């Protein structure tokens, strides 16, 4: 086995531990509990106007004519804009995709409607009601076109083409080939073939919809943006060239954000539109998305179809790998795509020691809402598929599903483990995690219950094992498009000692409920040897704080690594400065300074000491007392950029270390299935997580709960369904049935703590989870259906779908050939 080489990391774990690792209650909570939070819609500006987007009712239509004159004539309407006007006022957005999808010309509003909900015009008016009423007066003459709503069909050259300039619906196509799958298929004792697996569309629908308040200040040229966007620096990079605005003029800020889960990552078309209408009207433009608008157009998770899956298996149960074709449905525009076409390969073999993998990957555009990252972005689809493979191998070849997993898992002694495509799994104990998960659900008891049975009910036990790969190497974008100028990752933070001895931290992250204010204070308190309550951490990304790099934001399970290590680095710099000043004031060597309890003192003589307020005083307001060489070299305002140790992946071989850390989730559940109705009831649910060193265990557990809740809801209830004509059939919360407190069972959790050797603090990102519940629930349904039932081939299983499976209705064929 090849042993991976990763840059040596200087661990800072020994400097943490007084407050790091403890379940401190969050400091954010007080304002949120008292109704004193400040979310985007709570923010106002003088003279602001309300914006309403006019959205196409058609999934695919040319716009023959668009006339805003009746809306313009309405008193109280400040401005209207159409796509044609946008095209005159800005440049098209730059593209991540290579040719031919790079030819897509996209403006903040659409010149042609490509999905139901595509924004074709906008109105800004004195009130929300008026903006909406005025939008109804805009006359649009649509020429409806045939729609394509299936990713596989969209690849067919005979299908309707969304973007004529591309010439087809291909967003990206390529082959990922590692090891020697043909050899494996020829030499395996068994080959299991699965006709089709389908991972459905859903989204995490943060409770706060998207929103932005944008003021293009014509006096200064500054564009002030209050927005709950999750990845402001990506938006800055896209919007700057498009709007012709300097980076220092794009000023993002917000305080509180009502959830993100990846869904709020791609808001830049709306924000750009708001900026342009603000400039036109000379007023701040305010937009708060309606829920029905959010469901239609905010973005959905990637839908993926896997075809012709072949799995070589040896007689002893060793699974050699898999070969398949994947069709990913990007929806109508590539707002963050086609990054998903490579992101999945961070977890190419899943949790397993598969050596031979061949994936023929196609991403197409369809007349559906554009996709965005959604809690487990692009990997949960792939991980779900792998778990379906493993379960199917166990069933068809009569292996025990627990033993088969344990046998094929990456073993604890394998770490750091290099995958076939050069990713390095940092640490973990998958078999141990599985044992813990099984004990959470009383596995043996559940098997007994299953044997006993009860009239009209069936018991099923399911397992799902996944990875949450955190801290992307953005260099993987070059596997998609070698011309992209991206690689590595990082985050910035500043830690400052202020005039009266206050410690203040600014982060480049944009939290949406993960408790960054609390956890950053915990590590800073440890480094500076103060109380967490002495440290104030600014909430929300604010570009004017200059605590950012090009990657700044909150996404892809990385704060515990990038954000926290930036804060640690900045705090260590500040500590060094404090010690330097302290040594100068106390007239001793820096090595003799002890910093603790808000006081720098001479080792062994606590009387010879200076408190932090004194240190601050001599730097801020009393610097004549300092020797010039000290005064000139300290600022007490320390910025640090954390950079993970990455190299640029090889676009030719599609190999490289694509992510820094791999948190592990192993879930297990027991369900009861009603034979008459197909309804599934969860009797037991256990989740085990291993995210390395935990900064605040209670917050980690909260993230596990949330990710598990989303996964359970997606597996059983939440699915976006489009009609063949491209109409979204559940564009509201009546019909898009988000989980309530009655839908999520009691969750039992446990953990393993395998510190990452690749991060200074030993932590791994873990916020997304790996979509483990989708695998777990499907596995349990399959188990409950019994030995001869058809394959659970879809990630979403409504009661009706289960009912059909119970009646033997097959939607995907499984075939086994043995030597």
């Amino acid at each position: 086995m090849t042993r991976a080489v990763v840059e040596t990391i200087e661990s800072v774990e020994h400097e943490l531990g007084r407050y790091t690792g403890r379940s401190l209650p969050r400091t954010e909570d007080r304002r949120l509990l008292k109704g004193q939070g400040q979310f985007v819609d709570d923010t106002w500006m003088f003279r602001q106007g309300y914006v309403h987007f006019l959205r196409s009712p058609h999934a695919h239509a040319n716009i023959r004519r668009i006339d805003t004159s009746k809306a313009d004539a309405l008193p109280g309407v400040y401005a209207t804009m159409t796509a044609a006007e946008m095209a005159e006022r800005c440049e098209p957005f730059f593209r991540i995709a290579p040719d031919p999808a790079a030819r897509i010309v996209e403006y903040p509003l659409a010149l042609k409607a490509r999905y139901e909900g595509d924004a074709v015009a906008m109105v800004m008016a004195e009130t929300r009601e008026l903006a909406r009423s005025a939008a109804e007066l805009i006359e649009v003459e649509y020429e409806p076109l045939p729609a394509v709503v299936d990713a596989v069909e969209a690849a067919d050259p005979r299908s309707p083409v969304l973007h004529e300039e591309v010439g087809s619906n291909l967003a990206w196509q390529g082959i990922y080939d590692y090891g020697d799958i043909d050899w494996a298929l020829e030499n395996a004792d068994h080959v299991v073939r699965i006709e089709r697996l389908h991972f459905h569309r859903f989204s995490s629908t943060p409770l706060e919809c998207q929103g932005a308040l944008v003021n293009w200040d014509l006096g200064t040229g500054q564009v002030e943006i209050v927005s709950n966007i999750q990845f402001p620096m990506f938006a800055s990079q896209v919007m700057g060239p498009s709007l012709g605005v300097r980076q220092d003029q794009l000023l993002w800020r917000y305080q509180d954000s009502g959830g993100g889960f990846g869904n709020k990552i791609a808001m830049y078309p709306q924000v750009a539109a708001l900026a342009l209408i603000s400039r036109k009207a000379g007023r701040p433009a305010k937009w708060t998305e309606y829920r029905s608008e959010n469901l239609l157009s905010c973005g959905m998770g990637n839908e993926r179809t896997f075809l012709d899956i072949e799995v070589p298996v040896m007689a002893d149960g060793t699974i050699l790998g898999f070969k398949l074709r994947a069709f990913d449905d990007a929806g109508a525009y590539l707002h963050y795509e086609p990054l998903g076409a490579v992101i999945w390969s961070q977890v190419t073999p899943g949790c397993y020691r598969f050596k031979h993998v061949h994936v023929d990957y196609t991403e197409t555009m369809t007349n559906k809402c554009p996709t965005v990252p959604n809690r487990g972005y692009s990997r949960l689809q792939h991980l779900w598929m792998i778990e379906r493979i493993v379960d199917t191998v166990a069933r068809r070849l009569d292996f025990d599903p627990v033993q088969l997993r344990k046998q094929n898992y990456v073993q604890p002694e394998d770490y750091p483990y290099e995958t076939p495509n050069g990713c390095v799994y940092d640490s973990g104990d998958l078999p141990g995690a599985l044992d813990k998960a099984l004990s959470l659900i009383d596995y043996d008891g559940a098997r007994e219950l299953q044997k006993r049975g009860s009239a009209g009910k069936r018991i099923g036990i399911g397992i799902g094992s996944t990875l949450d790969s955190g801290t992307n190497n953005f260099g993987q974008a070059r596997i998609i498009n070698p011309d992209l100028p991206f690689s590595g990752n990082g985050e910035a933070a500043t830690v400052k000692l202020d005039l009266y001895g206050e410690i203040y931290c600014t982060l480049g992250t944009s939290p949406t409920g993960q408790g960054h204010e609390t956890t950053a204070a915990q590590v800073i308190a440890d480094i500076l040897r103060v109380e967490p309550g002495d440290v104030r951490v600014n909430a929300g990304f604010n570009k004017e704080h200059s605590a950012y790099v090009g990657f700044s934001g909150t996404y892809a399970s990385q704060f515990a690594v990038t954000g926290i290590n930036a804060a640690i680095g900045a705090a260590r710099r500040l500590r060094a400065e404090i010690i330097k000043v302290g040594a100068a004031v106390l007239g001793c060597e820096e090595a003799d300074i002890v910093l603790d309890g808000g006081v720098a003192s001479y080792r062994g003589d606590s009387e010879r000491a200076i408190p932090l307020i004194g240190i601050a005083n001599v730097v801020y307001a009393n610097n004549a007392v300092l020797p010039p060489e000290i005064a000139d070299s300290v600022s007490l305002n320390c910025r640090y950029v954390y950079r993970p140790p990455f190299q640029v992946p090889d676009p030719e071989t599609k190999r490289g270390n694509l992510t820094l850390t791999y948190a592990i989730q192993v879930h297990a559940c027991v369900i009861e299935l009603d034979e008459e109705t197909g309804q599934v009831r969860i009797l037991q649910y256990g989740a085990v997580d291993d995210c390395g060193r935990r900064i605040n265990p209670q917050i980690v557990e909260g993230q596990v709960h949330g990710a598990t809740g989303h996964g359970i809801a997606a597996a059983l209830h939440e699915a976006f369904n489009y009609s063949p004509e491209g109409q979204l059939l559940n564009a509201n919360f009546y019909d898009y049935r988000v989980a309530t407190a009655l839908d999520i069972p009691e969750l039992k959790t446990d953990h393993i703590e395998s510190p990452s050797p690749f991060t200074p603090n030993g932590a791994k990102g873990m916020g997304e989870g790996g979509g483990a519940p989708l695998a777990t629930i499907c596995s349990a349904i399959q188990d409950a259906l019994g030995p001869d039932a058809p394959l659970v081939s879809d990630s979403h299983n409504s009661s009706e779908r289960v009912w059909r499976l119970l009646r033997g209705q097959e939607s995907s064929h499984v075939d086994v050939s043995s030597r």
Partner: protein
Amino acid sequence: MLLRSLEYERPTSTQAAVEALRSSRRARALAGGQSLINVLKHRLAECDLLVDISRLEELRSIDVAVDGSVRIGAAVTYDELDNSASLRGAHPKLAEVAGGIADQQVRCRGTIGGNACYSDPASNFPPLLVALDAKMEILGADGLRSVSAEEFFHGPFDTAVRPGELLIAIHVPARGELGVGYSTVTVADADSWALARACAALKVNGTISGARVVVSALAGAPVRLPELEERLSGLEASPEAIREACANLGAGLAAVSDVHASAEYRREMAAVVVRRAIVEATER
């Protein structure tokens, strides 16, 4: 989502309410607003006048008569029904069904009259009111008239209440020896969207008699099943006998397909809930 502009009135008597409702073709009564306001927000329908009847005392009481029959004012909320001790005694199923509607907030505002008048196929009360042979008291320009629940529900958002009329109260006959069963297959948890729902009211005296069986949530208005009722008459009240009587029940029923379920599944579930409701009714 925002409403179009409209007018609002809060009359102080039912007579005045009816007059207000007669003043415009687009006037509608507003009680709890838990359906109407959402529809107006989405601008799927327009009203030019909302007549707020939610505070009319004449519509706000639950009266249980000495004989056990019940009169429920149209503007009584689900929460009030759920928490009415006298109703729990006289007609426990009415209180129980009210307590299972939507969620606590909706139950605090939503009214039984609204539930009836919108005749939403997924609504909880229509099949129960038909099974219990309730009478709907409607006030119009010509005074009061009474319509049986069975004739009241015409289809989605369509009832016997004509433009310019107001549902005043619902009269439910005394329970007497009736057993009442109620069963639903929902999209998710117990209180969520119904895919098929049934209600059965019957007497058991060794054998079943006087059965009224109603199925709903499949397509339009609740549907009574007279052939099944006939088969039940004189039948032994055992789960096996009931299962046999309900065999192949779904096939003949009209059902819609939508994002939650196909018509085929709804029909099959109708057979399940009908059987379950009848079995429950025989057990109490």
